[in-house]
């Protein structure tokens, strides 16, 4: 059976929403992981948090939208994805909950213990989602053990080598992304440290990325689509080019390097999505039980309505979200943090 045009559009949009989410929340999750290590005192910790402050919540909404879009366009996939992956999603949820409040709560009391506690919440609330989203997608790429009797996996079966490697890949991508973000948004010694760290982390990312590309050949069927429709190869090629350019730009312009890192993350996700098509969640047992864009989608009527809605509202969102980023385009200075009128975190 062939996918109708709306199923195709929504498969693409589904991928796009996840890709944009990882591109945006990637740097704030990465920064949350880095911040206990890269920031050497309270001022620097606050500096990291204040680069994230104005934008992290708007970034996280892309996750809510990706989940909501999965529900609206592919409700059967939404239902199975969230119930089969119950335990990892629960851990991700708790992590995002404590991260979400810690930005607001951290600065509210002057005690060291209080701040350390919320700093830990930021750290673990950033590390776990980064790692587990990678594990989740790695398992989706491999396929979940689904058959007529249902799902035969659990948290431990998800923590297989390929799943863990994908988790590590996501963490590495986000750490490089975050160090580049801090390289342009922080000031003083923190900025210099971030710039050096980006250069140190990049080779690690490169190695993990190569390992991932190789292992994907053996662990998944993702490459099949690239053979049957080689036009798609432009996506992973762009991913690799952008990844290499990251490093090149680090010696020229950290701003360009950050944008290149954005492209890298987008292209990595798109590569996975292109490889998955038409599956959203393949079955590793029997392809008859794979959840696809064709067998798990909403009716054409619903897909049409949703298409109109996103065609109107996503451009509007992009306009004001980009405007918001522009408002905060200058780096965070120490003065700003201590300026009472700014009311920084």
């Amino acid at each position: 059976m062939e996918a109708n045009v709306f199923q195709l559009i929504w498969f693409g949009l589904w991928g796009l929403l996840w890709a944009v989410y990882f591109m945006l929340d990637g740097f704030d999750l990465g920064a949350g992981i880095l911040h206990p290590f890269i920031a050497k005192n309270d001022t620097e910790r606050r500096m990291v948090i204040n680069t994230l402050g104005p934008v992290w919540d708007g970034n996280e909404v892309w996750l809510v939208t990706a989940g909501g879009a999965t529900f609206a366009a592919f409700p059967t996939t939404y239902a199975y994805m969230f119930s089969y992956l119950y335990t990892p999603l629960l851990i991700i949820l708790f992590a995002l909950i404590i991260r979400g409040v810690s930005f607001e709560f951290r600065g509210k009391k002057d005690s060291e213990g209080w701040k350390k506690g919320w700093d830990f919440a930021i750290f673990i609330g950033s590390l776990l989602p980064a790692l587990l989203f990678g594990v989740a997608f790695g398992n989706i790429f491999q396929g979940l053990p689904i058959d007529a009797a249902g799902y035969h996996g659990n948290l431990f079966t998800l923590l297989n080598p390929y799943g863990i490697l994908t988790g590590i890949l996501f963490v590495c991508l986000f750490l490089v992304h975050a160090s580049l973000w801090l390289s342009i948004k922080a000031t003083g010694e923190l900025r210099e440290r971030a710039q050096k760290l980006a250069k140190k982390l990049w080779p690690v990312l490169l190695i993990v990325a190569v390992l991932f590309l190789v292992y994907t050949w053996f662990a998944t069927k993702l490459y099949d689509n690239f053979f049957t429709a080689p036009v798609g190869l432009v996506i992973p090629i762009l991913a690799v080019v952008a990844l290499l350019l990251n490093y090149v730009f680090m010696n020229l312009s950290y701003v360009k390097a950050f944008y290149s890192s954005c492209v890298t993350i987008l292209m990595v996700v798109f590569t996975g999505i292109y490889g998955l098509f038409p599956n959203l969640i393949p079955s590793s047992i029997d392809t008859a039980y794979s959840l696809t864009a064709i067998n798990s989608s909403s009716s054409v009527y619903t897909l049409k309505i949703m298409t109109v809605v996103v065609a109107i509202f996503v451009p509007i969102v992009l306009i004001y979200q980009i405007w918001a980023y522009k408002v905060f385009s200058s780096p965070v200075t120490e003065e700003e943090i201590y300026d009472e009128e700014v009311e920084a975190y």
Partner: protein
Amino acid sequence: MDALMLARLQFAMTAMFHFIFVPLTLGLSVLIAIMETIYVKTGNETYLRMTKFWGKLFLINFAVGVVTGLTMEFQFGMNWAEYSKYVGDIFGAPLAIEATMAFFLESVFLGVWIFGWKKISKKAHAFAMWMVALGSNMSALWILIANAWMQHPVGYVLRNNRAELNDFAEVIFSPYAWLKFFHTVMGGYIVGAFFVMGVAAYHILRKNQLDFFKRSFKIAAIFGLIMSLGIAIIGDFHAKEVAKTQPSKMAAMETLWETQKSAPIYMFAWPDAENERNDFEFLAIPGLLSYMAHGDFNAEVTGLKDIPQNERPPVWPTFLSFRLMVFLGVIFIVLSLLAFIYSKKDTLEDKRWFLRLMLYAIPLPFIAAQVGWIVAEVGRQPWIVYGVMKTSDAVSKSVTSGQVWTSLIGFFIFYGILAVVDLSLLTKFSRKGPEPEKTA
């Protein structure tokens, strides 16, 4: 307890917890936007200080509202997969629209508002708070459109082993949805108003920053009075819609067992569901239930005995919650009327008994909001989609009771910590009061 019972308990608990913070966000965002607009228009620095003080409390509360909201989106898929599969074609769309239209708006503009004091003009900054208020209210609209569909499903057809949307306009323009929306957000506005009045009362009692808090009190009193009256009017229309579309819920709300014309409301009653009667009922006001339900003292109201036994909701929780909500609603009108009068006459400082009352009244609108939701959700049982799907058929099949125990206990612990921290921070900063006025 099996996975179904645990999942129900968990949903009830997480939804009620989320709804502690949401109404305050709904109400305070509007009040703060009003205060900041007055500042921009008049240049009066007191209103800027008001914006910043109430804004600080708003932000503490907003953060918890956001994170507890994440749980709701995840939970439909995690614990109610059969439901999501069966009605997702209809239910998923308003949720996705909520994210694109509303969540982005409130989150992006709040980030700008928090950090943008020195980066954008005063007008743009006030505009940002209006966008936050608009975003939260639109968010309420879409989730309530979704919930209203569960209460009164329209615009769909049963096909391909599931419910499929065939008339989007019927869903989004459903009168049930809009009545529910106005009723719910007005509840939020009352929460916001009484919160401000209560905290202001605390400071007025201590003669601390009198001008600041009397101004705050006045704005909240006007807002609170309008909304207390409005919510009662809308509530009346809403009840009539419920009677029309959900007769089992209406019967439970008033513990009416026998279908009858000129049905009375008993001022005092208590259900005995096992024996299909009431333990006692006295002080009947004749015909009032018929009037409330159908606008006609002689109309026929369906009794629980005419609803099949396995389609009746739990009676005493629905009945008690409805009574408590209405009782509180009357109190809000009385209190906000007094608040308005004393504010206008500028006699607040002398009415110490009233100020103390307003301080202790802060929790009341929160309670009213919760019991209102109990009426809505418990009263809909045993249906998850009224007349279409039973709650017991909706739960995820692949999730074990062990997994739900884990998540339930996890929520207890995390939410417990959040509640303690949130309450302690709100108390601390409410007591502290605003930054002192800057002298030249």
